[in-house]
């Protein structure tokens, strides 16, 4: 039997050598995170899920308004002011500009890496345009159009990798945002039973009259 074993190993040697040399894996070094991160910003998550139709229950249909300057949520009572820059309701994001608000805010959805976008573009900022016939938002809605992709297999909303949202704020300042998660607790691998409607995002806000994000 020993001779059989040793012969077996000779026979395998050549093929195994190929297997092992081909299995090398490089993992990239992690980047330092320099941005401010807002976690679990509730965007009208509702109170539960209707088991009959899969739709959320107890929703208010109100946007959660946010100011980059303060890094805080702004009360809905102030929706007519320029105190807020962006608003979140489920997967829809509005800006304080156009038909959504009285401010000067606008947005660009840019492909690239958050850390590599060092300057806000001079122009090209879209504003919300919602009227009785069409709903056009500065950040387009729908899977694959704006900031997220709907994974039909896993039935979860995933922020599209490589999409950075550049905002002009309500008072003509600039901010860049990367949305990291749409689920409570910002789980690394969300499943469809996780609670949806909670934004976790990182951002850099330029408080001065400059387009630089350095």
């Amino acid at each position: 039997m020993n001779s059989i074993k040793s012969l077996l190993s000779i026979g395998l040697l050549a093929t195994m050598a190929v297997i092992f040399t081909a299995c090398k894996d490089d993992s990239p070094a992690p980047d330092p995170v320099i941005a401010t991160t807002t976690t679990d910003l509730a965007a009208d998550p509702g109170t539960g899920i209707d088991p009959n139709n899969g739709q959320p229950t107890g929703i208010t249909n109100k946007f959660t308004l946010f100011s980059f300057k303060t890094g805080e949520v702004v009360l809905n009572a102030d929706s007519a002011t320029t105190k807020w820059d962006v608003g979140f309701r489920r997967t829809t994001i509005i800006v304080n500009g156009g038909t959504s608000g009285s401010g000067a805010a606008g947005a660009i959805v840019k492909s690239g890496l958050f850390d590599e976008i060092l300057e806000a573009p001079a122009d090209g900022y879209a504003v919300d345009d919602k009227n009785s016939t069409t709903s056009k938002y500065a950040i387009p809605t729908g899977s694959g159009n704006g900031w997220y992709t709907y994974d039909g297999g896993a039935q979860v909303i995933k922020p599209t990798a490589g999409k950075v949202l550049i905002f002009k704020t309500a008072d003509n300042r600039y901010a860049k945002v990367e949305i990291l998660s749409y689920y409570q607790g910002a789980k690394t691998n969300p499943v469809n039973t996780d609670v949806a409607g909670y934004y976790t995002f990182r951002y850099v806000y330029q408080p001065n009259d400059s387009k630089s994000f350095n």
Partner: protein
Amino acid sequence: MTLRTQFAKPLFCTLLIISQFCVAAQVSTDLDSLRTRQLEEVIVTATRNERTMGSLPMPVFLVPKAQIKTMGSLRLNDVLTEQTGLVVVPQVNGQGSGIQLQGFNPDYTLILIDGEPIIGRYTGSLELSRIAIGNIKQIEIVKGPSSSLYGSDALAGVINIITDRSQPGTNGNFSSRYGTNKTLDLSGDVSVTKDKLGIYLFGNRYSTDGYDLSPENFGKTVSPFTNQTFNSKITYKVGPKTDFSLAGRYFKEYQRFNFEVTSSNEQIKTSGTGEVKDWNINPVFTHRFSTKLKVIARFYTTHYQTETNLSLDNDGSPYYHDDFEQTFTRPELNGEYFINSKNIITLGAGHVGETVKTSRYGDENGRNQWTNYAFFQYEWLPMDKFTLVSGGRFDSNSSYGSQFSPKLSARYEVNKRITLKASTGVGFKSPDFRQLYFNFSNSAAGGYSVLGTEIVQPRLAELEAQGQIQSYLFDPTLIGELQAERSVAVNVGGKIEILPSLTMEVNGFYNSINNLIETQAVAITTAGQSIYTYRNVNRAYTSGLETNVSYPFARNFTLSAGYQLLYAKDKDVVQDVKDGNVYYRDPNTLVTKRLQPNEYYGLYNRSRHTGNIKLFYRHPVTKWEASARIIYRGKYGVGDIRGNIQGETIPPSDRNSNSILDVYDDFVKGYALVNLSVAKSLNCGLRFQVGVDNLFNYTEPIYIPNLPGRLMYGSVSYNFSKNNVKP
């Protein structure tokens, strides 16, 4: 008496009784069978002519009948799944099984029976379990494009199943096998040769109870089915120089199934029936004008038909109906001319006519297509050490235009121990009928429509006039005529004798594929349903290395090992990654990062590593046979699959919504299957076999529904032979 003592060991006690009978019938051991047959194996697929394996300059493999019998296989997929570089994969809808060769999807390998194509690629790939293998003499596998001889579909390679023909005298074999899942296989063949006439008949009946990998769901993973196969081959020597043969096949399968469908958020139980029928007939005349010129004329006709009906369990009302019918005819004339022993020419020409009728085209009219073709091949053998085969084929098709597919292969014997081989060629695959003519709306699965390229524009115009189009996702005027998918391939390798009788075969391959046909979403209806059509878009490559080592390390023992390394990638994605335009989300920090070129894993459903280790034992005197085989398939990714298995949604691998498979995605785990078999033959013609496939009962219900759990079986066969040839 020796027979009696050997019989004390086997598992069946009934054997004892039979052995009594056998001792009486025992004849002296045939000494001739002790001598190892040194005859070189002959293969026909690579050049369309009978050539010895060793003389061929392209990568060819052969699975002989003896090996198939020792393995205890029943259907074609059982045999192919154990061959190096061949991976049996589920079809698009997750059911059934097709073959992946050199990283190509199943619809890119041409599958032939005695050189004639099997039709019925209903969803693209061919259901391999349709082919019973009880009447197979050998299976020939040619890797690399062979469109130069066979035309469309032979991009990855050709698998040719050579069936038995009548042997001298009267011979017959009957076998029965019973195993797990109430699987019963009854097979028989009879061969009679009398003077100029030879008749070979084969019949098979296969029935199974199916299996259920997820019993918590309604219905079985594979529902019970029964099928019958009949084959016949009549040969007649018309004259000293003329042979005639008539081959025929008839196949019928019937299946009953149950499953649950979701309709407006309601689960409805349904039951249905599926029926498949195919037949073919092939008269062939072979005439030798001289020792130098042989001409073959044939007229192949085949028909395939399938029908599915589904009705609701609660009120019995019909819920779904689907039918498909295909006819294929091919007259062909080809000749082989030996100018001398160093120069051989093969020429051929033929015509293919095809008709498809299906409920999925929106009407009951047949769609027709024809192809005229001609091919040539020149074999140059200037010396024993060197062979050069060059050839090409021209195909002119009624719907996709013309194709020229050349091929060049060379072989050089460096010395007694080393032989080098290299070949390069072009392969193509014509757009199939569904890509041209589909007019199919699926209201059952979420609602979508697929329109073939021939009808997409008029249908969209119609829908627009009716105000049913909400928006266009792709400019419909840009959808042109579909082109054939094309590949250019290089195969380089050779055979090395490391030790006396320890041989290693190596083949490196690179396939560059253009014009791949993909589904393209064109529009969304006002009801929110997507409309898809087809487009030539993708460019891809598959490349890798295959090695096979075989070593008869002791008398009657052969150990072999095979391994395939595979890289299969979308060229446009490779470029995008290189340009830095592909991102992923770090699974731990959730931060977006740029994907590095080495992090793009490749196309879905391809394992980088596959391999096998097999041990065969065969004793010519005691007639014991045994085998132990380990088949390994490495991890692979799963794309977005339309449809589901038994109501289970198949989660795609892509975790980071960049629509490509990268190293951060989820993979289906690699797995190894262990198969064992033992057989004993008696001199009186009886043979007993027991075996177990998938010994460790490995299953993966969602991703690999075509892999049943452990299968145990026992079989008995009886072989008789009466040599009545006059001396």
